[in-house]
Structure formats: structure tokens, C-alpha cells
């Protein structure tokens, strides 16, 4: 069996003591930072990126994946204990998780999240391993127009799923793509939008941009709102779910895992979409929908399994097609590029130990998180009591050093400061930043593939619609737009009828 052979290669890499150690450190640090309110996976990864610079590529990737899960997991803890989602995929966990905590069942809620995440992680790892081969083979069939269509689909879905009006999300995508044009045009070698600044010849760096917007600007926002955290102060004692809890959470976990695994693969999807979808599903299927919002264990088990599965399978499009499906994956591209790995179909064939090692270490990371979190949950909760006025300068320090270390240059530091101001403008205008970053990352590839497709078709745009594969991808994008417009159209018609 190919699958087992590949997993064996992966285990040989992942089980090396040093790699185990890095996976462990990644999970530990990720949880440590991710548990802090207001710091999601994106900011956590961006902050911890410099730690991986000195490592070997496989160790660095394994550690980054660990950081990602750790941060994801830390967000759930914050959601349950302080009713504050560490990141958007934990938003739904706050609904029932915090209610459980208030009823003195914080331990059970945390255990449910941990068990659900671990189970989902196991399934998603297998799905990733099983799908990687066939999808990579499909990727090899893709030409420029198919890649172009796929990326357009991803960007449309990402803006459909972002908060706020759809058109503003699309605007942010296009703006991100325009920003991605800064630098050297690969085809002609001429400088665009660089204004003679040599540091801009390679384009705008993703990391200072992400840190400026998601790190620094977020701090300014947090400082404005001085609401106190409503920490659940009871000691967390009983971690074990009762027999009845088990009966209710297991089916929710199974459904959540299935849903998350599927939705994670979708371009534009990932943890956020998965957790929301799972919560809706559980509420619909439940015989006691009235218990939701009042501490229903299904409302924790389902979404927590789903977001972990989605977080993991969102690696699939990145590793097989080279297309990041969400912002965290986009940051992963940045991190991989630093180590001179360019994600795409070639990684699996050229560098199988790295590829399979990474996949297996994801499972190892999930196991570590289970062990790390259940006994140590008291420690994480204690971290939440550090006042923000000590916390945010620490974030500033880590981000600043991280930005400087990208190229050992201060230009990136100034870039981050500029994007801090820009990010603050976005917060005030309630414009979503995630589509901007995705546009920035996918922009160059979209332009390149579009240009190539047009060269091949001699400037005939209809070729995008006459090729079956690209046509169906674009059709899916069009359907997504229609679906999001429908409620608006309906609302408008009702409005018109009323007048």
C-alpha cells in the first residue's frame, strides 16, 4: 500500500528525536501565545516565525505546524474560560463553552474540545495522506487557465466568507492583488510601483504586512476597548465527561470531523467556515435545540472537531496545488519561501521526506496537544490573568524583532509601521483584512497564469470558459457570488414591496 509506505517515510522523519522536540516546542509556544486573548494563529505564527529561521527546513515546518495547532487550540481555551475567542474559528465555541464553564463544567468543556480536536486531527491526517497523491496528480493536469480559475474561485470564496459586505471583501482582494504587483515584473524585468526604492524591487513582504495589520494595529484597537475580562474563577477540577456527555458528544464529533475535513479542502475554506457550519448543523439536528446557547455539549464538540479537521485539511490545497486557501496558509507560504521551499505539486515528488514528515508530525502534534493541554490547563488559564498593559509591549517586542530578522534590515520594520497605520484605518472602516492578504499572496501567480493563458490562446479570453475544467471552477465561483447575493436581492425585493 502506497499510503502506508508514505506514512512510514513520514514517521521516520517525524519520529526523529530532534523533530519530536521541535514539534513539542511548536505546540507549547503556539498554545502559550495563542491562549492570550486577541492573538490568533496568524499573529502567533508571524510572531514566532523568527524562531524557526535558524532551523533546518523540515524541522522549521514541523515546528510551524505545531505552532499553528497550538495557537488554534489555545484559542479554544480562551473561548471557554473567558468568553473571548482567541481567533475567529473559536467564536462559536464561546457560545456554549462559556455557558458550560459558568455552570462549573469548564473542565468538561475543555476536555471535550481536546478529545474532539484530537480525534478530528487523526482523521484529517489520514485524509490528507490519502488525498495528497491523487490531488498532486490532478495538479499536473492543470494548465495556466485552470490555475487561474482555481485561484479566482479561492479568492471569491474567501471574500464571500469574510465578515461584512461581499463587495467590500472583493475590493480588498483586488487591492491586495494591486499591492502584490509592487516589484519586478518577471516577464519584462521592469520595475513596477517601486519608485526607485531598492528594497521594493522584490515586492512587499508578506510578514511585515501581516504583523502591521494583525499584530500592531490590533493592539491599538484592543487598547481602545477597556472591557475587563470575565474570567471564570472557579478552579477547574473535573475534566471527565459523564456517560451522558459521551453519548451526546460522540456523534457531534463524528459529524464535525467529516464536515471540517471536507470544508478545509475547499479554497477559501478552513477552520472558520468549518466551525460555523458544524454549529449550525448540530443545532438543526439536535432534539433539544433550545439547549444551544445554554451550555449544550454538542455545541462545543462539533465545532471544535470541525475547526481542527478544517485547519489540518486546509494544508491540502497548499501542499498539492501550491494554492493557499486561507490567510494562515498564505503566511505558511511566506514561511516556506524563507526556507527556500516553494509549495506546489513538486514538493511531494522532490522532497518526500519533508512532505510526509510534515503530515505525520501533524498527527504527532495533535497527540502532544492532548497531553499538553488536559493536565496543564490550569497553567494556561493563569496566563490569562497577566494584565494587557504588560502583555502588549511584549507582543510589540517579539513582532519587531521578527520583522527585523526577515532580512536583517530595518526597512521591513518601517514597512510594518506603515501597515500598522493602514491596518488601523481598515479596522475603523470595518474592512476585512484577510482577503487583502490572500490577494497579496495569490496576485503574482494569478497575473502570471493569466498572462500565460492569454499568450497560449493568442489573447482570446473565451478560452477560460471553453475549457471544461476552468469553466467549472469559474462557474462554482459565479454560483458562490449568486448565493451570497440572493439574500440581499430578496431583502431588497421585500423592501420594495413594502413601500
Amino acid at each position, binding site marked *: 500500500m502506497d499510503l502506508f509506505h508514505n506514512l512510514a517515510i513520514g514517521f521516520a522523519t517525524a519520529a526523529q528525536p530532534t523533530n519530536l522536540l521541535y514539534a513539542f516546542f511548536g505546540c507549547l509556544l503556539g498554545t502559550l501565545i495563542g491562549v492570550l486573548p486577541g492573538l490568533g494563529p496568524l499573529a502567533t505564527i508571524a510572531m514566532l516565525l523568527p524562531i524557526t529561521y535558524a532551523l533546518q527546513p523540515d524541522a522549521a515546518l514541523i515546528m510551524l505546524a505545531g505552532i499553528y495547532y497550538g495557537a488554534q487550540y489555545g484559542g479554544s481555551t480562551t473561548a471557554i474560560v473567558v468568553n473571548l475567542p482567541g481567533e475567529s474559528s473559536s467564536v462559536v465555541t464561546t457560545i456554549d463553552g462559556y455557558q458550560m464553564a459558568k455552570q462549573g463544567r469548564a473542565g468538561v468543556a475543555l476536555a471535550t474540545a481536546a478529545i474532539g480536536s484530537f480525534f478530528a486531527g487523526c482523521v484529517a491526517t489520514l485524509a490528507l495522506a490519502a488525498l495528497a497523491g491523487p490531488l498532486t496528480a490532478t495538479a499536473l493536469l492543470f494548465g495556466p487557465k485552470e490555475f487561474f480559475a482555481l485561484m479566482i474561485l479561492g479568492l471569491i470564496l474567501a471574500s464571500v466568507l469574510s465578515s461584512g459586505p461581499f463587495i*467590500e471583501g472583493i475590493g480588498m482582494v483586488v487591492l491586495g492583488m494591486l499591492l502584490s504587483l509592487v516589484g519586478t515584473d518577471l516577464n519584462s524585468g521592469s520595475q513596477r510601483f517601486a519608485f526607485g526604492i531598492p528594497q521594493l524591487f522584490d515586492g512587499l513582504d508578506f510578514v511585515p504586512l501581516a504583523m502591521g495589520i494583525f499584530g500592531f494595529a490590533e493592539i491599538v484597537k484592543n487598547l481602545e476597548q477597556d472591557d475587563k475580562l470575565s474570567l471564570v474563577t472557579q478552579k477547574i477540577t473535573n475534566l471527565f465527561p459523564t456517560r451522558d456527555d459521551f453519548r451526546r458528544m460522540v456523534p457531534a464529533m463524528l459529524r464535525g470531523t467529516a464536515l471540517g475535513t471536507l470544508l478545509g479542502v475547499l479554497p477559501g475554506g478552513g477552520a472558520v467556515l468549518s466551525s460555523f457550519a458544524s454549529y449550525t448543523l448540530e443545532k438543526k439536528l439536535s432534539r433539544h435545540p433550545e439547549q444551544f446557547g445554554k451550555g449544550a455539549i454538542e455545541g462545543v464538540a462539533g465545532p471544535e472537531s470541525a475547526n481542527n479537521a478544517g485547519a489540518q485539511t486546509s494544508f491540502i490545497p497548499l501542499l498539492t496545488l501550491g494554492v493557499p486557501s486561507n490567510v494562515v496558509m498564505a503566511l505558511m507560504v511566506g514561511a516556506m519561501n524563507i526556507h527556500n521551499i516553494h509549495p506546489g505539486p513538486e514538493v511531494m515528488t522532490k522532497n518526500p521526506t519533508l512532505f510526509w514528515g510534515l503530515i505525520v508530525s501533524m498527527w504527532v502534534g495533535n497527540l502532544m496537544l492532548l497531553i499538553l493541554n488536559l493536565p496543564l490547563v490550569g497553567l494556561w488559564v493563569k496566563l490569562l490573568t497577566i494584565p494587557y498593559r504588560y502583555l502588549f509591549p511584549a507582543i510589540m517586542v517579539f513582532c519587531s524583532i521578527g520583522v527585523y530578522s526577515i532580512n536583517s534590515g530595518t526597512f521591513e520594520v518601517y514597512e510594518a509601521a506603515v501597515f500598522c497605520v493602514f491596518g488601523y484605518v481598515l479596522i475603523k472602516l470595518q474592512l476585512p483584512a484577510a482577503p487583502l492578504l490572500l490577494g497579496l499572496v495569490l496576485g503574482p501567480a494569478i497575473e502570471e497564469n493569466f498572462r500565460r493563458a492569454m499568450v497560449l490562446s493568442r489573447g482570446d479570453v473565451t478560452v477560460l470558459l471553453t475549457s471544461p475544467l476552468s469553466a467549472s471552477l469559474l462557474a462554482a465561483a459565479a454560483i458562490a457570488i449568486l448565493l451570497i447575493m440572493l439574500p440581499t436581492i430578496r431583502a431588497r425585493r421585500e423592501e420594495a414591496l413594502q413601500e
Partner: protein
Amino acid sequence: MKGLAIRNHRAFASGALFLAFAVFFFVTALQYPAGIAAKMGPGYFPRLLAIVLAAIGLVIILGAIKSTADRQTLRTWDLKGLAWIAGSVILFGALLFPLGLVGALFVLVMVSSRASPEFTWTGALTNAAVLIVLCLAVFVYGLGLPLPVWPSLLN
């Protein structure tokens, strides 16, 4: 003039922001040769995107002044907090080489701490000391990142 009043100030400002970026990119892109669809020059794709962005900006602006638009005002801005935070980052960049990591981090922590309404001198000084020691231990001695630790005058 009921119809032309800006009802949704937030959306109006967002649309104007998109429009401004679109104009900037379009005008700048006019310097680059556009070529034709079959053989695009460096200016083709930027112009295309700028036109799309301008259209999006216009749609948002029109939506904001339409008589059925939601009424929404702009939120208040905390420019002082922004100045402390962004300023501390710029100072860090400017001071890293003349003052070294220790000095630049000290300034970064002290200046950014001022952004907090609960700022105290003792708290900020303690925090700076702890963070400097931590960073030296982790980044300089632990990970061996090439960072200038002491002021350049001493080297």
C-alpha cells in the same frame, strides 16, 4: 437634497479609499507599456485591476448615498494610541543600529507602553528589563540571530 446626502459614512469612506488607490495605481501604471492581450506588457494587468477596483469603489459609494442605505457614522479614532504604537516601531527601526538591541528595545517598550491608559513608570521599566533579558536569552544567545546587541559606538 435628501437623495444625495451621505447616509452611510463608513461605506462612503471605504469606497473613497478604494477609488483613491485605484486612481493612484492606474495613473502610475500609465508609465508602463500595456501591450496587447496576447502579449501583455507590465502595464496591462495593473490597469485592468485598477479599473476593477475603481468600479468596486464607485458601487460602494453609490450604495452609501442611496436613500435606502443604512445610516452609519464613522467610529471615533484614537490617533494618540496609534501614534504611540506606530511611533515606537519606527523608533525601534531607527535606533537599532545606533543604540543596539538593548537600547532600541528599551525605547520600544517605554514608548509603546505609553499607549495604555494604565501606564505607570515602574511597571513599564520592570517590563522593559524583563523583556530585554528574555530577548537576549532567546534570540541572541539561544537562537543566535544576527542582531546588534550594543550601540555601534562601542564596536
